[in-house]
């Protein structure tokens, strides 16, 4: 079963990301982390197709988690999307520079969340491996 890893300290946003993606594809499983400390182990263990990382998290932020993923040859090839609670002009540039596959601002409405779910599905999850 295809799996998506979500690293976000906000339970609400994890829930919304799951809801938005499963609205397009119900057979997706999720691995969830509140912090990025053990992200490498989880990736190796769960073998997700995609990781979605919140940028602003207490302790280790999303960029540091991204660095960890890209630094380890075993996890470096995983597609990673960065997601942020508020639009920061520099975040998009940093995400690209650090090798993220996409950058999104957390949607302000449910409808926009479902649109984001559709976009992620179409770009990264539209067919089973």
């Amino acid at each position, binding site marked *: 079963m295809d799996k998506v890893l979500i690293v976000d300290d906000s339970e*609400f946003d994890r829930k919304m990301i799951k809801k938005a993606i499963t609205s397009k594809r119900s057979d997706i499983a999720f691995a969830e982390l509140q912090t990025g400390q053990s992200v490498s182990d989880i990736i190796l263990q769960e073998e997700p197709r995609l990781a979605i990382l919140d940028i602003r998290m207490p302790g280790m932020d999303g960029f540091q988690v991204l660095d960890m993923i890209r630094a380890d040859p075993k996890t470096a090839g995983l597609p990673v999307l960065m997601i942020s*609670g*508020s639009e*920061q002009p520099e975040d998009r540039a940093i995400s690209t520079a650090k090798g993220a596959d996409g950058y999104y601002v*957390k949607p302000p*409405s449910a409808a926009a969340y479902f649109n984001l779910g559709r976009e992620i599905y179409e770009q990264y999850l539209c067919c089973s491996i």
Partner: protein
Amino acid sequence: MPEIYKTILDTHPDLICRFDPDKTFVFANRAAANFFRTEREILIGSSLSERVPPEQQADVIGRLDRLNEDVPTGTSIQEVRRENGSIVILWTNIAIYDSGELVAYQSVGRDITLQNRMRRQLKTRTQDLHNVQVELRAVLDAVPALIYYKDDKNNILRVNKAAADSLNMPVEDVEGRNTAELFGDAAEAYYQDDLEVFRSGKPLRGRIEPYTPQEGEQGWIQTDKIPIADGPDGPRILAVATDITEFKEQEALLKSINKNLDDFASLTSHDLQAPLRKIGISAELMQMELAENLPDGAQPYFDDIAKGVERMRTLIKSFLKFMRASPAGVELETIDLTALLERVADDESEFLEDAGGTIHLPDTPIFVRGDDALLGQVFANLIGNAIKYRHADRPVRIDITAGSDNQFWVVDVDDNGQGIDPNFSQDVFDLFGRAKPHTGIEGSGVGLALCRRIVTLHGGSIDLIPTEGAGSRFRVKLYRARRPADG
């Protein structure tokens, strides 16, 4: 006397005379006769005393009388007034003795009028020059900037007091020294700049560089270097440096504060946005879940939630913009204040109706420079306060009136509420400051402080104006904007 010598003496420009011991002229050349303004034939045989003005006789005759065999020569200066001005003669007098007996006096006078005038002028000019130097030195020493005047070998020729003080040295100890002796390694960089200025012939302005004096702490200076046209002793450079150490420290501090503020603003924005998004999305999801089962009359509540969330989101964005931008950098738009007041009054209408109150708005077009959401917040606070702090014995009445001058719109918000004790009239604008305890009335003490911050950021003002009647009057001044063109 051989004829040849007589001719030489006659034509000599100096005044040549010879007297008997009784000071009778026995010889005078042509120049001497001219000086005494008579014919030589008349002059010779006449007494010296007849030819000297009475007031000078004692001096002139006395000088001859004072000569003796031991001191047979003497000099004197005689100034004679003539129609075209004074002439000055330097006399050299010789008493001639023969076997111990005075036989004659010989006087040679040289017209030194021109030299004398030049000497006086030179003296005056030297004094003037000295005065100019003293003044120039005083001016340079009064300048707070560090001034160095250098040659093309990195030698310091002149400095002002500020420059010497910065080295903890007297001016005279600095002048004449090489820069390398005083500034160590940094001197080479200064010298390279000097050479570039000499080479290009163009001033170097605003060079900011570290500055390490021989004694004292490292600082920062901003320097202008100006080439001075080549003089007889080679090219010169004038370096004017301003100590900007304090400015640099303040700049660093300001950068750090701005960075902290920016971080704080970002975090605040993030922390405020997260629950707001949660409220909005949850309400939206709830509405979707309930769909047709939504109870009658529930829809307006969902609309209010969405409206409130959207307004809060707009406010957060505006505050973030203001916290990040300097007041000068804020891009203000033309705001239709009349429409803004109508919108704010409409938002508050429910509370106003509950309080049985009325509001009167200006009907003239008012256009100001501002941020719509933030100015909306100002008037929402003022109207909200008027309702919140209403008088128990009378229905709320809010009157908003406006007038303008060339520069500002002045908007008065009057109410008939409890009023504000004049002793607290300034405190109300302090953060967490309140006019007086209002038992049972909810208030954070932030509203009016926020109003003042917002209005001040707009370049305007907000004040509490004393009134005769009951209630309060807040006066808001905002910059006028040109009415936008239709269409």
